[in-house]
């Protein structure tokens, strides 16, 4: 167990491509950190640099108080779980898990005992003599975890360990990974592009884009106070709805949903920022509601929505509709769309609303919807920055992402 410090870490490839730029992060002992971002954002490169599989171009990597930039992977005492699991096909499950111990010169009895313990924890005991090729995907994944656990390393590095599993198993393994990490209390750096994993697993989440850290914070903080459109759009599923808007005087803003009064915290920030007047409004799906189910005294705005599609999930109802107007565009949002492969162009502003199960919205009919104007996020249309990212409260400053 150890704390890991990345101090202005840079990765530049010989061809000049900048993969990671000025990465700063203090990972406390036992902390579970998630690196998340679209493919090619540098998260795996960062992980490989911590592992020692790629060298660090500039900056310092400190593990347990020691600068380890030039140490070979084997001398860093870190275990890694690969997306492909990287199990040795010619060794049995037991041999796979015992391999790091065997290399470390541990005697056979101890190896057997430790492998046995780990196998029990991962419910692999009856598979110890089988070859990886005879195991299911989930079992292989657990063997890969086991190989990391037996060594009791200073830290775990996990490179999208669950993305080769099918959806149901992934949910199961997610909880198991979390349980194992909590019970062992080992510092963990976990790379994923799945924002559900990012939200559920980590103590803190690092959102990356194009080699640059966008924001660091607890999942809940990132969800509620994204610093820019990119983080706002990346975190959350279904993702935040974005509507282009025009600032009017005295805190009013016009969007495809009509006129709305900005909440106080936004109004002051917007006035201070001297924004050009073009903004993008972000509204989370759950901040919409069927107007008939909202008590009249609750602050917010209402509008008429031509409902396209209704998905009743049992616990809630998802309503999809298009509002007239221009779709929101910015570099951040285009990046996100590229990552998800969503290059559809709608004739208007597509909106997803998550309504109460008691709602009676129907496909093809117009429904009166309400949204909570106090929860709206306001972004500058040009820079994509959140104009009122929330108070610089304790949580974000303790994140240590921007150390002086």
């Amino acid at each position: 167990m150890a704390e890991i410090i990345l101090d202005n870490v840079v990765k530049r490839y010989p061809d000049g491509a900048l993969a990671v730029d000025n990465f700063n992060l203090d990972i406390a002992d036992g902390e579970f950190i998630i690196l998340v971002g679209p493919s090619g954002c540098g998260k795996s490169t960062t992980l490989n640099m911590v592992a020692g599989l790629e060298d660090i171009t500039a900056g310092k990597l400190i593990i347990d108080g020691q600068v380890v930039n030039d140490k070979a992977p084997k001398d860093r005492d870190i275990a890694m779980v690969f997306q492909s699991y990287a199990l040795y096909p010619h060794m049995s499950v037991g041999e796979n898990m015992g391999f790091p111990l065997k290399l470390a010169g541990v005697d056979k009895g101890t190896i057997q005992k430790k492998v046995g313990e780990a196998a029990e924890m991962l419910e692999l005991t009856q598979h110890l003599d089988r070859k990886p090729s005879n195991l299911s995907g989930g079992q292989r994944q657990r063997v890969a975890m086991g190989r990391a656990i037996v060594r009791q390393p200073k830290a775990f590095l996990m490179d999208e360990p669950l993305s080769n599993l099918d959806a149901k198993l992934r949910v199961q393994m997610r909880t198991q990974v979390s349980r194992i990490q909590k019970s062992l209390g080992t510092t963990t750096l976990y790379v994923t592009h799945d924002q559900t994993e990012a939200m559920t697993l980590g103590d803190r989440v690092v959102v990356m884009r194009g080699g640059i850290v966008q924001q660091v914070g607890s999942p809940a903080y990132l969800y509620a106070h994204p610093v820019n459109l990119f983080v706002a759009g990346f975190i959350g599923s279904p993702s935040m709805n974005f509507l282009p808007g025009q600032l009017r005087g005295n805190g009013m803003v016009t969007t495809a949903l009509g006129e709305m009064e900005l909440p106080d915290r936004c109004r002051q920030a917007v006035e201070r920022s001297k924004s050009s007047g073009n903004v993008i409004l972000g509204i989370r799906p759950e901040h919409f509601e069927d107007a008939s189910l909202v008590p009249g005294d609750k602050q917010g705005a209402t509008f008429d929505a031509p409902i396209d599609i209704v998905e009743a999930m049992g616990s809630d109802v998802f309503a999809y509709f298009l509002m007239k107007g221009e779709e929101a565009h910015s570099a951040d949002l285009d990046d996100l769309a590229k990552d998800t492969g969503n290059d559809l162009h709608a004739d208007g502003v597509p909106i997803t609303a998550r309504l109460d199960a008691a709602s009676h919205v129907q496909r093809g009919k117009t429904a009166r919807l309400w949204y909570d104007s106090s929860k709206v996020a306001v972004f500058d249309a040009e820079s994509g920055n959140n104009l009122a990212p929330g108070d610089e409260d304790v949580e974000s400053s303790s994140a240590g992402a921007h150390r002086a």
Partner: protein
Amino acid sequence: MTTTPTPAAAEQATQPVDDGSLDIARQRFTDAKKAERKLGLLLVAPAVTVMLAVAAYPILYAFWLSLNRADLRRPNDNQFIWFENYVTVLSSPIWWTAFGVTMFITIVSASLELVFGMILAVIMHRTIVGRGLVRTSALVPYSIVTVVAAFSWRFAWTEDLGYLTPSGSAPLTEFWPSIWIIILAEVWKTIPFMALLLMAGLALVPEDLLKAASMDGANAWKRFWAITVPLIKPAILVALLFRTLDAFRVFDNIYILTNGANQTSSVSMVAYSNLIRGLNLGIGSTMAVLIFITTGIIAFIFIKAFGAAAPGADQGGRK
């Protein structure tokens, strides 16, 4: 099913319903199989015909000759003599000396080729800068005709003339120096071939496994022995098998370098001497058949020794 099945209903469901449909299904299945097999046979027929003409016929003819007294110097004495030729050959010290020499050359050169071939393969596999140039230049020896290379080696080791010969010595006129020069020529020529086969194996080792091994605490040496070698065992087997069988039939290098002087003949040389120079078709064919049998035994031993890693064996363990 929407209703919960009772135990009786479940039992009934597991019993196959005998309404004749099963027989029809089986019949269709076998019909399809038959048609497929017929098409398969038709498709391989041309190749089989050619193989019969160029391989099976000569082999059978050689075997037939080996059972006859067939000497072109005495064409009238031809006679079917069963295995008498085999007795003659197997009780001849010339054959056994040649056999020993051939075995020695085979084992030593195949081992050296494996070691150096592996080194070359790893170098070629790991080269980042000028990869094409490195690979091409490494293959030069293999692209030179063996006989030409052998002449060059003979010149290099010629007394007083050769640039490799220590002054005052004539290595190609002595037994052991000759053998080592033959081995050198063989090894020099076939390292690239070995390296190519091994490199194909190296390319199949997933990079992630080597990364995982280095995370698990293995240095380069341990990674090679614990991960790479077990994973490329099939490639090693193929390379070794090819080279062993090839080396056992060594002919051209010896023919040029020593021409079999000082008992440096290989079995192929001896067979050639009897068959072509001596015009003794019976004895020559017998030796050819014996060489054929020996290579068969070598191949068999290899496949047994490598077990599941042999080509064509179940590859369940590799993925």
